[in-house]
């Protein structure tokens, strides 16, 4: 009897250890707005919609992955591109939901807007079962984005100075065409070649399309890619100036681009080129 109970206790102990280590005990829930997502419902949806690219193990090695560039996200690493949270931290459930809903332009990830909000919340819950980080860590605190400042030519000019000083052009190119001197050497964190964003291709970015999204992208960085976080080195109002300048690089007519074109036409001789020969800016 006593030996038996010891054995039982021992077995229970082992079982506890085993359960604690198995994915079954990773985060099972998500909270997106008022919705609570459930991982077991999410699993059904994942096996129907996501498994082909992201794979049965969630490691981004689905059967289609070999044909895809950039590669599907590896959920086991819990490193996510589009976050409202600081670099190196986990995204919020809302961030993951946005990513599923929005899709990623310039990649094979489509928008899953046709899924219901409940279905997306369930998928978020399931995606979080692939990494133990979701049990031991909390998502980072979303960055604070102050109200947007006015679009003025001063703001654009200052943003242009920052583009030079922060050396954005080293990858994105002097005109934002994604052709800077380091562009051809870039690889993601899995050593796959990756291109810097070409601002002339449109108005949408991987992580959204609004000015807030643009602000968030360079402040939080795009984790898992060469794009670093500028949170420690760009002040909030300066960040808005950079946003306003970046909008002038786009092919579409934007208020910023109109303002810049007018200024550039009138002050052609005063404008210093962006790039290695700019002189100042350091």
């Amino acid at each position, binding site marked *: 009897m*006593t*030996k038996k*109970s*010891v054995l039982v206790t021992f077995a229970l102990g082992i079982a506890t250890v085993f359960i604690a280590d198995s994915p079954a005990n990773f985060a099972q829930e998500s909270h997106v707005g008022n919705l609570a997502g459930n991982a077991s419902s999410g699993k059904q949806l994942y096996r129907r919609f996501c498994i082909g690219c992201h794979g049965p193990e969630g490691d981004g090695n689905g059967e289609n992955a070999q044909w895809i560039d950039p590669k599907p996200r590896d959920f086991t*690493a819990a*490193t996510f591109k589009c976050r409202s949270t*600081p*670099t*190196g*931290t986990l995204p919020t459930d809302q961030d993951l939901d946005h990513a599923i809903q929005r899709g990623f332009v310039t990649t094979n990830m489509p928008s899953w807007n046709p899924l219901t909000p409940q279905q997306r919340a369930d998928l978020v819950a399931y995606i979080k079962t692939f990494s133990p*980080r979701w049990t031991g*860590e909390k998502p980072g605190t979303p960055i604070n984005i102050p109200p947007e400042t006015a679009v003025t030519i001063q703001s654009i000019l200052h943003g242009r100075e920052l583009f030079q*000083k*922060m*050396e954005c052009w*080293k*990858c994105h190119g002097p005109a934002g065409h994604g052709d800077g*001197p*380091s562009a051809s*050497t*870039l*690889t993601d*964190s899995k050593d796959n070649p990756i291109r810097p964003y070409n601002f002339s291709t449109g108005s949408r970015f991987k992580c959204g399309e609004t000015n807030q999204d643009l602000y968030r992208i360079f402040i939080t*960085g795009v*984790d*898992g*890619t*060469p*794009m*670093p*976080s*500028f*949170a*420690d*080195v760009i002040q909030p109002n300066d960040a808005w100036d950079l946003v306003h300048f970046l909008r002038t690089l786009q092919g579409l007519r934007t208020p910023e681009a109109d303002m810049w074109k007018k200024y550039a036409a009138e002050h052609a001789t005063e404008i210093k080129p962006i790039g*290695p020969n700019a002189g100042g800016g*350091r």
Partner: protein
Amino acid sequence: MKTKSLLLLAGLALVASKVGAGSPAPATGTISGRVTYTGTPPKMKPIDMAKEPSCAKQHPTPVMTENVATGADNTLQHVVVYISAGDTAEAIPTQVVRYDQKGCQYLPHVLPMHAGQVLQIFNDDQTSHNIHPLAKVNPEWNKSQPAGSAPIDTKYDKPEFIPVKCNIHPWMHGYFVVLSTSHYAVTGQDGSFSLKGLPAGKYTVSAWQEQYGTQTQEVTVGTGETKVNFTFKALPY
């Protein structure tokens, strides 16, 4: 009932012995030796920094790649030698570990530290760097550090060998070696290392080289110096 209480007693005794281990045993033992290679290591290549003139001009002769750095008599540099088992638990060292980006190089090339120890990263250059440690066990982050910006204070909580790179300057490569011991050393050009201040006892000593991986040896340390040498098999590619 009897078995159970016996087990309980045994458990308590174990805990007690662990606590007792902190009592003053004179830590005068030293493990020292040299790390060498046999075979043919790859030729290190000169790095072309022409794309970053402010760095290129700091190096009258080109900087060489460092993935297999060798010295005279087949010695291996930048090998981390550390106690991988047998060390008693110790407090996290309070001194700050410093990492520099200077002349578009990481100094030192390989930086060991204790898990949880404060790591301070400086940019001493006239150009922007992005510091991108490719951690897998610890969180992966990537931060821009333009010329003249404040040092980045950070730490890693879990032991891991973390490759570090700068995406802007693709030739920049280094390693953070996060260990659960503060008994570590990095070999110099002569391949030598020394782990000091060890209480007498049995230890596992590991040597890690970024291209050739890890070797381990069991070592019994007394009050004086114990010699241990490591030899890696070098391949020309």
